[in-house]
């Protein structure tokens, strides 16, 4: 296959304890550490492994987001992506918008495979892969934990609620990466230097004839209700007593 496209979203790092803005207009992102969405790292790692097995010629990282998402695309280039494309917008990007943008890039680049993370850890929406597959009218395999390319098709194992499901899809197709698909590589310093010379195109979202205006209006963002403070018990006997009182064990 010639090309694999990988979605790379800039998100608040997974170690950050996210706080809601006092005015309820969103969460605090100023001065907060930002990273590549962990599931997108897994998606990229998989694309790189497919390429390294000789089954693909080029891996392209694509981000839809603010100008600063160039940082995350540089990380993707350092990991091994051949080139990167940023479709720039200052708006908050809804999954449907991301899918519409990715479709434009797909139409231009004609990849045989698109891999994205199964969800982004900011909005936790888990929509982009199926939405892109729908708009492209191609197969989808979400929550992948194993991908085998077999010429013009692929056999994919998916993590579903009952266990593991295997499906077969014709290419081109859209896959979404689950946690256990692989373990992403660490980026080494020389790779970061090399990545600076790799091509990174920046296009305005508006220039694609699309708008990033959200279809869903966020009315209010609030912190979750706190759980009431619990008690510490000193031993097993006290624990079992407490559970019995609540009627949870007999």
């Amino acid at each position: 296959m010639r090309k694999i496209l990988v979605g790379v979203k800039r998100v608040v790092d997974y170690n950050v304890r996210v706080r809601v803005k006092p005015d309820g207009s969103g969460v605090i992102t100023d001065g907060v550490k930002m990273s590549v969405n962990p599931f997108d790292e897994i998606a990229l790692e998989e694309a790189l492994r497919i390429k390294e097995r000789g089954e693909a010629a080029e891996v392209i990282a694509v981000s839809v987001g603010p100008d600063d998402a160039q940082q995350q695309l540089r990380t993707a280039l350092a990991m091994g992506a051949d080139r990167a494309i940023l479709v720039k917008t200052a708006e908050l990007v809804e999954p449907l918008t991301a899918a519409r943008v990715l479709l434009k890039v797909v139409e231009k680049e004609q990849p045989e495979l698109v891999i994205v993370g199964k969800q982004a850890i900011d909005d936790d929406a888990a929509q982009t892969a199926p939405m892109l597959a729908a708009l492209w009218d191609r197969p989808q395999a979400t929550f992948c934990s194993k991908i085998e390319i077999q010429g013009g098709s692929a056999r994919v194992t998916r993590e579903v609620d009952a266990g593991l499901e295997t499906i077969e899809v014709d290419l081109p197709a859209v896959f979404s990466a689950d946690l256990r698909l692989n373990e992403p590589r660490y980026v080494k310093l020389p790779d970061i230097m090399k990545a600076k010379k790799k091509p990174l195109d920046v296009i305005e979202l508006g220039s694609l004839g699309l708008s990033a205006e959200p279809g869903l209006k966020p009315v209010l963002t609030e912190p979750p209700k706190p759980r009431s403070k619990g008690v510490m018990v000193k031993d097993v006997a006290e624990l079992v007593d407490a559970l019995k009182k609540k009627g949870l064990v007999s």
Partner: protein
Amino acid sequence: MSKILVIAEHDGKKLNQATARCVTCARQIPGGAVTVAVFAADPAAVAAQAAQLAGVQEVVTVAAAHNANALAAVLAPQVVALAADYSHVLAASTAFGKDLLPRVAALLGVPQISDAMSVEGAHKFKRPTYAGNAIVTLEAPADRKLVATVRSASFEAAAGGGSAPVRAVTLAAAVPSHTRFVSISAATSDRPDLASAPKVVSGGRALASKENFDLIFKLAEKMGAAVGASRAAVDAGYAPNELQVGQTGKIIAPELYVAIGISGAIQHLTGIKDAKTIVAINKDAEAPIFEVADLGLVGDLFQIIPELEKALAK
């Protein structure tokens, strides 16, 4: 008036309890009439179960050989065809619903609300973001179809006792052949189902081996509980993937959740926030799991589990 279509989830024989929870959400939508759609090779048994859910006005069935296994690419065009007469399309936010509904939404050209956790109006819902650390109220345009997945842990299952009529429909939608089901390896066990069990005992990295993780299975059996696991325990191969609890595993709301040797990372906590009683057993008194626990016990699990089994046997 809202006409709400709930897509049933099932294994060909049994309706998934997540669908009964989704029906409860659908019933809370103001002015809503609830229809459950069953896509299957032979929908009769599942349709009969759906018809019994309280508050369901009608069950529609779409019988076709290509519906024998739930493939999103095959189901989506059929759901879109059926959705023409409805204002809302809902499904549980399970692996099934998360796979299917965004495909439906995109075909309809509308955004989707994922993991609806409360109904604030016919087109207004709350949903968790950032692993449950920020709750967002979203308003969808009232003049478009609304597509949403429903967070099962936020709604009780609809009661039984109903007797909705069942209507078979034939759809003209063309279905693709580019996606083919091969197999499913589902762990068959007589243990309670993690997603719906009233009691859950979970083990973490501290169990340190697959053999030791048996301690969790045995304790769970004694308590009549389902088994869960942290991501670390699943990644290490101590427990199968379908037992992972958390942001990227199952989100559950049991009466009792017992976390053993689990530190309480935010990604894990988001999966258990709605549990009624959380018990934490951990040797580190500073472990974040104690911040959410109703009952905490500091100590070595390898001592505590046998003691607990003994105390429960009395």
